[in-house]
Structures are given as structure tokens and as C-alpha cells.
């Protein structure tokens, strides 16, 4: 605010010359730091919104260009909503209700320790689990595509049977060029055996410089080689263009007030999810209370509705009691349009390692969701969408580890059945926290989720010897049950750059 007033005031000064006004303003932007902020904001928009399409294309095309995908997403949504409504009817619980004043006071007092609450959640079930979603994806078909009955070397032997374009290893090597063998990486070149003078010290120095310059684009480029732990929180905030302004904190407080005043059915789903997943995790159990503070507010945040412009999904609509079908009485439910599923809270949990101020944690999570995570549970043709990731994973395995792929298929252990849950959760809860953060560094750096599919394939490659010896799906699951000791960056590097193809 003060900037604007100074600006206006200076325009009235006699030194301001009309002839040089344009240059003066440009100069002013530079020295006040506003130029950088504008650049970052524009860069942010470019990262999030898809490139401009044909002017005659309807808005649905921005969400999802392929009709059959849109239809599939629509049916899936109907199913979810039906499931939610029937749970609601069965349990005779309204989708939303206003809390009596006494209850509001109680909740306010308990705001920092909602984890101690033990509501009876036994009757609630998650609306869906990743494996339900996988079944839907397996049944996706493009009606315009004729697979033919005859098998050829082109036949895709995995579970996903839609023809989307995915990158092969040469293309991945180009895309992920900074992960190559000759480039320094955090997660590899900061290990004990490597003297810090060779890479780490310089990398840290550059990181500090990037932060000092407050340049989003530079930060995004920098983080491809990984972020030093001490700089990560700030770097992610810079890349996501999050700065905690007073209005952001105020907005969060308003959401909190919404939570206090109204109870939503999805709140119980959130509680249940946190209790089942994050509370039992070795690393994240400590942050249980933060998770409620983020997710309950998230459900009520109508600004999230904006991302449905480029999400193939649409927010579920519900109607005020008794006014079914009347558009004037339609509301989005939950207010943010996102129905949580089993494991949803694991998207937030790792962020608690970086941010301990609730409103900042909240902003970062929200931005991560509307940029990346939503793609992991909606049906679309986007290269970072879950369908493409599944196809990428299967194609990499079939092409570069055919023996393993065939073997697993023969014993009824389709690899995707095991790796799907890893990808849907972006590996949260499966990797050690420091490794997960190194992985998410690269998601931000490359603005793409494809690395999840590559890592999944790399994990299979790493454990190939053991997997070749198993004779059942259960045994295969057992070999891949524990990823907590894996080092992500060496795995990725070897798979992409050091495997003979």
C-alpha cells in the first residue's frame, strides 16, 4: 500500500517529466522490486495454465480435449458423489450443518489439538481408495481406436489400454538433462565420500544468491539439481510464488472461522484419513494436528474452485434440501469441490517438515494441489495426468525390462497394480522424508509429475533380481513393500543415464 502512495506522490513532483515518464516508471519498478514480483507472478501463471489453444475451442477443451476422457471423468464423479450421498443418507448425517454455539467454543479451544478428539468414525468409510480408481482407469477405452485382435510387438501388455503419447528414454534423457551423470546433484554428490568443495558448497552458494534475487524462474531451474535442506522452504515458496502477506493470513483465519461455524460431512472423512494414514507414519505422526488445520480449511476454500478451469474434473454439485434440480439452489460440495479419498492427507504431511506456520503451510499445500496433485486423481490426457503416468511406467518397463515385465504378468502380478499407489501419493509415505523432498524438488523444478513414473520403473529395475524369483502377486508386493531405504537420485540416474538400452 505504501508503495502506491509514494508512487502517486512522486508523480506530482516537479522533477517528473512527461518525456521520460515511461523510462522512469520502468526504473522505478526495478529498484522497488516490483519488476521481480510481476515477473514471478507472470511466470507462475505460465507454469499453471495451459498454453493458449484455438480461439474457437470451448472451455471444456481447456479442461480436457478428448471427449472420451471427459465422459469417463464425468461417470467417475457421478459414482463418487453417489457413494457420498448414500453414506450421508445411511448415517442420517447432513452434508453440512451449522454448529451450535457451545460446540463452536469447544472446537476453538481445541483448535491446536484436534488429534485428541476421538469421534466415532467406525461408520465412515473413505469414499474411494486408489485401487478403486485404478479399476476405472483400466477400463478406459478410446472408441476411435481399433486395437485389432492380432498381437504384435506394438501391443501394449499392461493394464492401461489407451493410446496416449508418452516419452521414451531418449526423450526423458533430454527432458531431465540436469539429472545426467556429469551434473552435480543433491542426493548423490553431497554424500559422505564426496568432498563438499567439489559441488555442494558452490551449489549452496548459488541457492542463496537465487533467493536473494527472488527470481522464480531461476529458482525453478536451480532446484533441478536438488535443494539444500536449509534453503528448501524458501525456494519452494519462491517457485510457487507464495509470500505470506497479511491478506493471506487473514484469508486463512476466515477459513478457520468457517470450520468453527460449520461442520461438514467431509470433515469426518478427513479425520478418518488422517487417523488411518499420517498418524501411523513413522515421520509424520508428530504433525497430526497440523493436518487437520490444513485440510479442514482446504475443504472450505472456494478459491480452489478456480483450478477446475484446467482440471478435467468438475466440482460436485449438491442442492439445498428440497430444491433438487433447481440451479439457483445448487452449491458445490464440499465448498472447494475436492472430495478427499483414502491417503489424501499424505499430500500435506511432508510439507510439515518445511513450514510450521499454519497459514504458510496452508498456502503452500493449496498451491501444490492446484498445480500438481489434482492430476493424480482425475482422468485426463495431460502428460502429467495419472493416466499418462501409468502408461509411461508400463511402457518403460515393457520396453526396457521386457523379461521382468513378462514374468510379472505371467504370475498375475501386473506391475502397475503395485506401483499405482506410489504414484497416486507422489510417493509420500513410501520413501524416507529426505528422499521424498529431493523427489518433490524435481517435480517443482521440471513442473512435471513424469518423474514419478520414471522412479517407479527405476524401483522395479533396482529390485529386478528378486522380482524375477517370485511366483505370486503377494510375493511381488512383499519384495516392494519397503522403499524406506531407497536413495532416489542414484536410482533415477542409473535408470535414465547408465542403463544399457
Amino acid at each position, binding site marked *: 500500500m505504501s508503495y502506491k502512495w509514494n508512487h502517486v506522490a512522486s508523480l506530482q513532483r516537479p522533477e517528473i517529466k512527461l518525456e521520460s515518464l515511461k523510462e522512469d516508471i520502468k526504473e522505478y519498478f526495478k529498484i522497488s522490486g516490483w519488476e521481480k514480483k510481476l515477473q514471478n507472478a507472470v511466470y507462475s501463471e505460465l507454469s499453471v495454465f495451459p498454453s493458449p489453444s484455438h480461439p474457437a475451442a470451448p472451455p471444456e477443451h481447456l479442461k480436457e480435449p478428448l471427449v472420451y476422457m471427459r465422459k469417463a471423468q464425468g461417470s467417475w464423479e457421478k459414482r463418487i458423489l453417489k457413494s457420498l450421498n448414500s453414506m450421508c443418507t445411511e448415517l442420517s448425517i447432513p452434508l453440512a450443518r451449522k454448529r451450535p454455539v457451545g460446540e463452536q467454543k469447544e472446537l476453538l479451544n481445541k483448535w491446536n489439538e484436534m488429534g485428541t478428539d476421538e469421534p466415532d468414525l467406525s461408520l465412515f468409510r473413505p469414499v474411494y481408495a486408489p485401487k478403486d480408481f485404478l479399476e476405472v482407469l483400466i477400463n478406459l477405452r478410446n472408441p476411435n481406436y481399433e486395437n485389432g485382435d492380432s498381437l504384435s510387438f506394438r501391443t501394449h501388455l499392461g493394464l492401461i489400454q489407451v493410446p496416449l503419447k508418452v516419452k521414451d528414454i531418449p526423450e526423458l534423457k533430454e527432458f531431465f538433462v540436469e539429472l545426467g551423470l556429469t551434473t552435480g546433484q543433491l542426493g548423490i554428490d553431497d554424500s559422505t565420500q564426496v568432498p563438499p568443495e567439489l559441488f555442494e558448497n558452490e551449489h549452496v552458494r548459488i541457492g542463496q544468491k537465487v533467493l536473494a534475487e527472488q527470481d522464480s524462474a531461476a529458482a525453478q531451474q536451480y532446484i533441478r539439481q536438488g535443494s539444500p535442506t536449509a534453503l528448501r522452504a524458501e525456494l519452494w515458496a519462491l517457485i510457487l510464488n507464495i509470500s505470506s502477506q497479511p491478506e493471506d493470513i487473514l484469508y486463512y483465519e476466515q477459513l478457520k472461522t468457517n470450520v468453527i461455524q460449520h461442520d461438514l460431512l467431509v470433515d469426518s472423512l478427513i479425520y478418518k484419513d488422517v487417523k488411518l494414514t499420517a498418524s501411523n507414519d513413522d*515421520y509424520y*505422526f508428530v504433525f497430526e494436528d497440523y493436518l487437520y488445520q490444513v485440510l479442514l480449511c482446504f475443504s472450505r476454500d472456494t478459491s480452489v474452485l478456480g483450478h477446475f478451469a484446467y482440471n478435467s474434473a468438475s466440482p460436485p454439485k449438491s442442492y439445498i434440501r428440497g430444491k433438487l434440480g433447481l440451479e439457483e439452489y445448487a452449491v458445490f460440495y464440499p465448498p472447494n469441490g475436492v472430495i478427499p479419498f483414502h491417503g489424501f492427507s499424505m499430500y500435506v504431511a511432508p510439507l*510439515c517438515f*518445511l513450514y510450521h506456520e499454519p497459514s504458510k503451510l496452508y498456502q503452500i499445500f493449496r498451491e501444490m494441489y492446484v498445480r500438481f496433485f489434482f492430476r493424480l486423481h482425475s482422468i485426463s490426457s495431460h502428460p502429467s495426468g495419472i493416466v499418462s503416468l501409468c502408461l509411461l511406467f508400463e511402457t518403460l518397463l515393457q520396453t526396457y525390462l521386457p523379461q521382468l515385465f513378462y514374468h510379472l504378468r505371467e504370475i498375475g502380478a501386473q506391475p502397475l497394480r503395485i506401483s499405482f499407489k506410489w504414484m497416486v501419493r507422489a510417493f509420500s509415505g513410501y520413501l524416507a522424508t529426505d528422499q521424498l523432498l529431493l523427489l518433490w524438488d524435481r517435480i517443482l523444478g521440471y513442473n512435471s509429475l513424469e518423474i514419478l513414473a520414471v522412479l517407479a520403473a527405476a524401483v522395479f529395475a533396482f529390485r529386478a533380481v528378486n522380482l524375477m524369483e517370485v511366483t505370486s502377486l503377494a510375493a511381488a508386493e512383499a519384495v516392494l513393500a519397503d522403499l524406506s531405504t531407497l536413495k532416489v537420485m542414484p536410482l533415477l540416474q542409473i535408470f535414465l543415464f547408465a542403463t544399457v538400452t
Partner: protein
Amino acid sequence: MAGKVKWVTDIEKSVLINNFEKRGWVQVTENEDWNFYWMSVQTIRNVFSVETGYRLSDDQIVNHFPNHYELTRKDLMVKNIKRYRKELEKEGSPLAEKDENGKYLYLDFVPVTYMLPADYNLFVEEFRKSPSSTWIMKPCGKAQGKGIFLINKLSQIKKWSRDSKTSSFVSQSTKEAYVISLYINNPLLIGGRKFDLRLYVLVSTYRPLRCYMYKLGFCRFCTVKYTPSTSELDNMFVHLTNVAIQKHGEDYNHIHGGKWTVNNLRLYLESTRGKEVTSKLFDEIHWIIVQSLKAVAVNASPSLTSSTANDRILKYNLINDTLNIAVPNGEIPDCKWNKSPPKEVLGNYEILYDEELAQGDGADRELRSRPGQSLGPKGGRSRDSGRTVLTTWK
């Protein structure tokens, strides 16, 4: 039989026995010739008590130094540290330097503490200086959080007053002795919870002092959110972290037992507070350990009971690495052993302090490498995710 280490133990725990058996060591009874005896605390007390006058022969090793209880018992520990500080002061050692308020610059790592009932009057004087402060009462001879409580009023500890009419009622024997310390009511919280650190330190020799810290230490969290509010003083689940206590809290979760590895802690602190302050923290922790050891001997009673499967694996590996250092190459112990073990046998231990190495570079180095300044080559850094940079104090 020649060449195989003969072992005895009076603690029936698989993490111990499996480790002995996997080395092909031979189990014997305590009346036979033995080389290695993993003793319970009671046995140590008996073996090394003045009356029995038992002496170890040159080829025998036990798992505790005779004076281990100098640190196990809280009153002895406090006495030792106070005495150590005074000694250094008398010698004019720069380590004992004080600031203008009389606080030790480098050795101020124990909060104000008194022995009860012995120092009762001294305590009352101190208490009256800041009557709104909270103090923590701990029984000298107990572990695992037993018998600990908080007070903020003198009336709550009337029993320990020497003049009290009930004092004859309370036995003056050391079993009932307590220490009372100023309670630190602004601890570092994570997720709003208090936590403590469980670190494993192996002392192989005292002269010269050679000690190792196990890299895989862990933090134990309270299940309930911390609050300094006085109404919660009675709620031990807020203030105490010992697992033995937490196990009975309603919120106790059996799957993970409320623990984090020290590496995790480091990752969290570096991410949220920055690298410098985190390194300083760990340096100071190491410093306190070494100084405490120099003041006295080692804590005797780590719990060997495992609460989760992961815990069992940790303790098994811990004992394994411990034995590798204490009984190198599975050779029959020889009291003349004096060499530092090679790096390969350290396993998950790293050198905390090696007096021989330190003295090799001159005594004046000790001053320069005070916590916060790492000097000299970095000793073994942890290989797994997250690193502990070790300073060797020379």
C-alpha cells in the same frame, strides 16, 4: 575351545544372546572362566562393591565401568559436574570461564539443581527468589520416569524439609533422596509436542578417554501437546517423554511408539531453522556428552526391552556394533589393548572423542574448538539420509 570368547549374561534378552551366538562365542556360567560378562545393574553393584573386592583378570571385560552409577544416579551426576567445574576453575582452565553474571560460558549445561533433603534450605532460598517458577522433582535412584513430579509451591515438598514434623517419617536413606531442578518450561516443541533425545554412547576406555556415539539415536515424543499452564502440571503425559510412561496414555499409538530418528530431527531443524543453528545444536550436544564423561562415568540402565519391531532391529544392531568395538575381531580380551579400532569396525558408531588423537596435537587446541566452530578434518559423517558432522575436539 582355544580362541573363542566365553560369555555370560544375567539378562535374558534376545538382542544380546543372538549377537553372542552369531559370533560363535561360547556361553559359560559365571562360576567358570569367562571373558565377557554382560551384567545387570544389580550384578555390577555386587561384583564391584567394596566388600567383595572382586578384581577382573587381564582377559575379562564387563559392560559397565565400576563407577557407572556416578552418572546413573542423578544426585551423584550433579555432584560430579559441580565438582568438575570447580576443579577446572581452580586449575585456571579457560573452559571454566564465566561471564559477568557469574554464569559458566562453556559449562552451563545443567539447570540449577539441589539435593533433597540435604540442600533443602539452600533450595528454599533459591525458590523464594523467583516464586512463580516451576521445579521438577526426580528420585535419585529410579529410571524410566518413575516417581517424577512437578511443583510450583513450597507446600508440595514439605516432606523433604528437615524441620518438618514428618521428616522422621521419611527415611533419610539414599533410596528416598531426590534432586530438584529448575524446570525449563520453554522447551523446543515439534508439532506442539515436547520430546527428549535417546543417544547411545559407548565408552571403551577412560584413560585415555575414548568414546563413540551411535549415529542412530532417537527422539521420544509426548503424546499430548505441551502447555506451560500450571493446571497441567499434574499431567505427566504433557511433560515426560519416557516411553514407559507414555505407553499408558490413552493416545499411545502402538505402531510407532512416538519416536523419530535423530537424522529426522536434524532434517526438520535444518529445514525450519537453518543449517548453522542446527549444527551448533548438535555440536553443543556432543560437547555436553564429552564434558559429562570427563566429569564422571557412564549411565548404566538403557532399556533393552524393545517396544516395536523396528526398535528390536535397532537394538540388535546397536549391540552388534558395540561388541565389534569392545571386543575387536572376537579376540580374547586383553587389558593391554590400547589401540584405537580401525574405521571399518565402527559400524553405526562414530568417534565422539579420542583423547589420544586429541592430545597428539597439543593441549591448547581444546580452547579453540569450542562448540560452534568445527576445526580440523571432519571425522566420519553419517552415510545415511541426513548427516551428522562430527567435530573432533583436539
